């Protein structure tokens, strides 16, 4: 129930256009409208978008993506511009002026020099900067590759190496560091080089498959039909075969190129994007996008083809009061014009990996995955969880969705086998992230930031913003909870979802990692954080547990959506246990499956989960099973477990004894002695205390207990024990008091007898 609330409800509310989709672009876009602009150039090495005018070049950072990004500008001299790329250290600007020369500026000194082709017969197809140790910049020419290094003394480029090849056209992406050079009549023969920081790797020459429309015709492969994509750190090449209407996938290895199957296409114009390692195949004519998660062998799409959605702010503003960026937006008074809103317009260019440039309107969109919609569209829970666990971009949201789904699936009492598979997915993913170190990294940085206050990273009057927002947000949270009982209900059970909803509302752009957060973002982060904590206070009040507080801290630090066993306990089992009605044996079955997965991955489980298991079993009076769980160490011994056994054992003596034994075996002598006394085994407790030198239990405790039993013999025995074994006991007040009491007791008995 709560899971549904989080996964579907906010989506519906936020999808302003009301359409169903799995991928969206978020309004507002980045506007790159500079008067006198001569076009837009994307520099994927530095993730910059350049817009040159006659004497300047304006550049916008696209990572992190923000529509508020201000351009930086550099002076350049006038002239034709075929392409612009900044050097990777951003010290130089390189502008291709013609097919024969490239001009360079030193940004600080303004010095300039040019590099020309040596012969007129060859022409420059393009160039790119590289972090390869051998050279700094590579020219791609019709006659092959030229590798140049910058010489800081001569302040000129000098040729390091040349590779002679016939090149018709080329494709390069900086994220793959791979350049593919097409040659041949049909341009389907490829030479590839990877210029990584490790050096230059030459790939074996290979041919791409192309179907022939007729026997004698030979279609020519165009540069637009080839895409290099990077997914899960693997490099693929995607080739559009227009005749066969197929998308061929090639995977690159150091020494081989392997075709990995084909995907069907439904449009003559195809483009691909990669968002968070998910391959998006835009069927431009059909105006739909199909998602593929090329992780396993399966080449089935994640979901049905659905349109790309433009998320519109205005409609949302009218439907719910929101702060955050609202004021900024309204001041800009931007409206999405009709042509701006044209999805898959003719002027759209898809940039690597996840940007769309609308050249006509001079705007840049960033493509987002709607994880909620994707997870809501599939009933195959374990595979959805696997998908979510692989997400790296919207880690927080993926994690929240996973937790919500885990809760839902248990509350809906789905078949145990299915939930077991889901648990296995989560545990395996966590174990994997531990091994890869990504989870611990997140935790470590979380610990470095002990409170939300430290998040105030923005240099500008952060306290001010915080204070002013508190009020607004408090109100908005209240408004929301009043508006829908569902969300209020959910807020009560988990603060995760609170922050989830809020985060959606504030249009916070997703972050790749904490270091990327720049000033613009950090201001919004403060907002988001305050929002979370304030609404938490609002809804939870004093019941806000430390665990919840941790959540808001963790949010910005997560690097993996993996869910630790502690979090499984805190955000899945505990809330589910509170909400679940009826027979708890189903939940026990789920916990057993969870332990099963955790055990096979050798992951330690939070002792509180064991405590919960004991409570559930004891509630059903299934003491026999409880005994088996303890004896077989399914519930690993710990002090918490022992104390819960003693507590649950009030109704069942065997269970209580298991608890006592566990205390003894854990060498928790102090507690063991206390419980022995509590159960009335004074002498045993004393003997044990003496044997294991437990000095922490006060003698008066024994004496009081013995006195309370109203048995003078017991009191005498205890008193005697202390007199014999504790030197100087006879002089203490305890001794005197109880000696007197003992005398009174025995005299009264004596008096009674006679």
């Amino acid at each position: 129930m709560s899971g549904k609330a989080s996964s579907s409800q906010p989506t519906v509310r936020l999808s302003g256009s009301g359409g169903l989709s799995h991928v969206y672009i978020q309004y507002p876009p980045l506007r790159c409208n500079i008067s006198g602009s001569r076009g837009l150039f994307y520099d994927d090495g530095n993730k910059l978008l350049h817009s040159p005018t006659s004497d300047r070049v304006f550049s916008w950072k696209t990572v992190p993506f923000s529509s508020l990004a201000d351009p930086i500008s550099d002076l350049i001299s006038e002239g034709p511009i075929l392409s612009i790329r900044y050097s990777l250290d951003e010290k130089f600007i390189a502008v291709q002026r013609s097919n024969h020369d490239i001009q360079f500026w030193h940004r600080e000194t303004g010095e300039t020099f040019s590099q020309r082709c040596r012969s007129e017969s060859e022409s420059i197809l393009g160039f790119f900067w590289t972090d390869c140790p051998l050279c700094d910049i590579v020219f791609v020419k019709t006659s092959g590759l030229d590798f140049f290094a910058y010489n800081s003394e001569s302040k000129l480029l000098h040729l390091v190496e040349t590779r002679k090849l016939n090149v018709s056209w080329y494709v390069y992406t900086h994220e793959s560091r791979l350049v593919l050079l097409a040659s041949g009549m049909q341009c389907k023969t490829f030479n590839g080089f990877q210029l990584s920081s490790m050096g230059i790797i030459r790939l074996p020459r290979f041919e791409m498959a192309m179907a022939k429309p007729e026997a004698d015709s030979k279609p020519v492969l165009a540069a637009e039909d080839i895409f290099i994509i990077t997914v899960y750190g693997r490099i693929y090449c995607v080739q559009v075969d227009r005749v066969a209407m197929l998308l061929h996938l090639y995977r690159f290895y150091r020494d081989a190129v392997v075709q990995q199957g084909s995907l069907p296409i439904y449009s003559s114009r195809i483009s691909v994007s990669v968002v968070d390692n998910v391959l998006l195949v835009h069927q431009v004519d059909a105006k739909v996008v199909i998602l593929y998660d090329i992780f396993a062998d399966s080449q089935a799409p994640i979901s049905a083809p659905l349109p790309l959605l433009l998320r519109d702010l205005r409609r949302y503003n009218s439907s719910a009061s929101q702060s955050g960026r609202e004021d900024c937006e309204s001041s800009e008074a931007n409206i999405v014009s009709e042509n701006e809103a044209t999805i898959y317009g003719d002027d759209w260019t898809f940039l690597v990996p996840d940007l769309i440039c609308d050249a006509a309107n001079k705007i840049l969109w960033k493509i987002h995955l709607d994880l909620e919609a994707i997870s809501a569209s599939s009933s195959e829970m374990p595979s959805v969880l696997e998908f979510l666990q692989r997400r790296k971009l919207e880690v927080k949201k993926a994690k929240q969705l996973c937790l919500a789904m885990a809760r839902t699936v248990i509350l809906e009492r789905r078949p145990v086998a299915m939930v077991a598979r889901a648990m296995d997915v989560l545990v395996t993913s966590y174990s994997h992230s531990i091994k890869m170190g990504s989870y611990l990294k997140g935790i470590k940085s979380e610990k470095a930031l002990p409170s939300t206050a430290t998040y105030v990273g923005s240099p500008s009057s952060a306290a001010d913003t915080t204070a002013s927002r508190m009020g607004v947000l408090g109100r908005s949270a209240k408004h929301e909870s009043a508006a829908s009982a569902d969300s209020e209900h959910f807020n009560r059970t988990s603060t995760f979802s609170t922050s989830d909803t809020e985060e959606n509302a504030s249009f916070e752009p997703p972050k790749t990692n904490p270091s990327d957060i720049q000033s613009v973002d950090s201001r919004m982060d403060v907002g988001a954080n305050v929002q979370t904590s304030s609404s938490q206070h609002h809804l939870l009040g004093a019941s806000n547990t430390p665990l919840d507080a941790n959540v808001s801290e963790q949010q910005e630090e997560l690097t993996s959506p993996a869910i630790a066993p502690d979090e499984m306990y805190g955000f899945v089992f505990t809330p589910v246990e509170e909400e679940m009605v009826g027979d708890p044996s189903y939940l026990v079955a789920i916990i057993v499956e969870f332990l099963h997965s955790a055990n096979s991955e050798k992951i330690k489980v939070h002792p509180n989960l064991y405590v919960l298991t004991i409570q559930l079993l004891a509630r059903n009076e299934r003491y026999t099973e409880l005994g088996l769980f303890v004896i077989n160490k399914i519930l690993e011994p710990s002090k918490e477990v022992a104390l819960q056994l003693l507590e649950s054992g009030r109704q069942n003596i065997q269970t209580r004894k298991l608890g006592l034994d566990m205390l003894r075996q854990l060498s928790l002598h102090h507690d063991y002695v206390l419980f022995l006394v509590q159960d009335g085994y004074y002498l045993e407790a004393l003997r044990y205390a003496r044997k294991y030198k437990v000095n922490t239990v006060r003698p008066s405790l024994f004496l009081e207990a013995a006195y309370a039993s109203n048995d003078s013999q017991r009191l005498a025995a205890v008193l005697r024990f202390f007199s014999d074994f504790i030197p100087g006991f006879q002089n203490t007040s305890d001794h005197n008091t109880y000696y007197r009491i003992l005398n009174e007791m025995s005299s009264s008995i004596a008096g009674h007898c006679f």
Partner: protein
Amino acid sequence: MGLSSASTATEAIKLCIFDLRRGQQEGQELDKILFFFPADLPFSTQLSVIGLSEGLITFTRIFSPEAACELIEAERHSHVFYEAEPDIWMVMIVEKNESEAIWRIAALQKVLKEVHSLFLMFHGSIRALLEKEPAGGLIRAHLHPFMMDYLRDFLFGKKLLLPSFRDCLKECGTVQMLNVSREAAIEVQSLVRLLESCAGSSPCYSLILFQDLLVSTTLSPVDTINLFTYAVLRLTPRTISSGVSSWSYLRKGSTGSSVTAGYTLAHSASVPDQYYCLPDTSPSGDNNYHVVRPLKRDRWSKAKDGFLVTDIWSAEAGSSTSATPTIWLQQTEERMYLCAYQFRSLTLILVVPVASILNGEQLVSLVKQQVLENASLKMLKVEEKLSKGWGGENAYHVSGYRYLLVDVDRNVSRASPPGKVTTLTKDQVLRTVIVKGPKVGRLFPLQFSIPKVVSLACTTTANVNEVWHKKF
């Protein structure tokens, strides 16, 4: 069982069940007798045994109304008393034998208790059956075959021989557990949960055995003991494959066929197999009762699909009840279907409530289908895991020792494996008990919870019985 001696004398053991509330009038004394072994003793002898017992019970009740007489130690006999139900007594008379050591009286009482518990599980209480037919024919018709089926395991010719502690070490009323690793235990629990879900919404219990050892149970302790006892007697792979009960297996040299022959000799061959009624003692002797004989030997077999089948229950021709085995749970007083599945060494017992919309056959076949569909893979895995961790029949042997450990709290016991018990000579056995005390902790950590508590306020006195014998 730790019974201390085997008896060789004729008529060494007598066993009777009688009801103090019946036959109070002179001339109706025979009414009291519900069961007597050996049945061919003259009534006068039977009555004199019961008369003595009754007299002692009445006398001792004056001093101890709650717990009357437990034992009479006569010069040549010991009379062991057990009040199975209010005013229904079971008395066992064993002959003392000069050359042999003393009987362990508690162990004999536990035999009586065990057979009564089993009776309760299959037929309900004796009193209830008496109330159903006050004449007593019904209860006698039930008791006799039931008791005889039980005793048949100990019958040699006409003689009833209880195994001595030299033959085997066993404590009635306890279960023997398999030591499992955490990994296997989780796997087992996962299977248990899966089985639970097989019966749909109705509460269903399960019991899992590996060989003759208990692995898991979701039943209450008392029902666990009963069902475990029954499973070891009649259901485990060993009893099914060899056709002999565990007792006979333990007693070397004895074969099932001779025992069966002994039984048929002892009783008139004319008595029909399924319909047993006492010829003389029952006033309504001409009635024929449909009596289910769950302890009857060699009636369980493994079907092709892995489920254990029997014709014991289907014998009730023409009756409305189904052929599916049923038992009474003592804890919840519910009538349940019994459904057993066997895979290699793994025996799996499912207990499904009778009170259900579906009729028995449908429900049970549905459950069976569910089990086969959902759990077979898991069972395979569990069996594999358990077999891997299982050290074989002599896994729990402690070389140089024979031992019997009982954890009274949890009704768990462990003893030297049967194959190793008999390797001691008589002298060695009799001479010494070398250790008494909590030796266990070292051997089986956490397997037995031994309270070392003997103090002034101790409410439970020494509740662990252990005997360690040193081999020389």
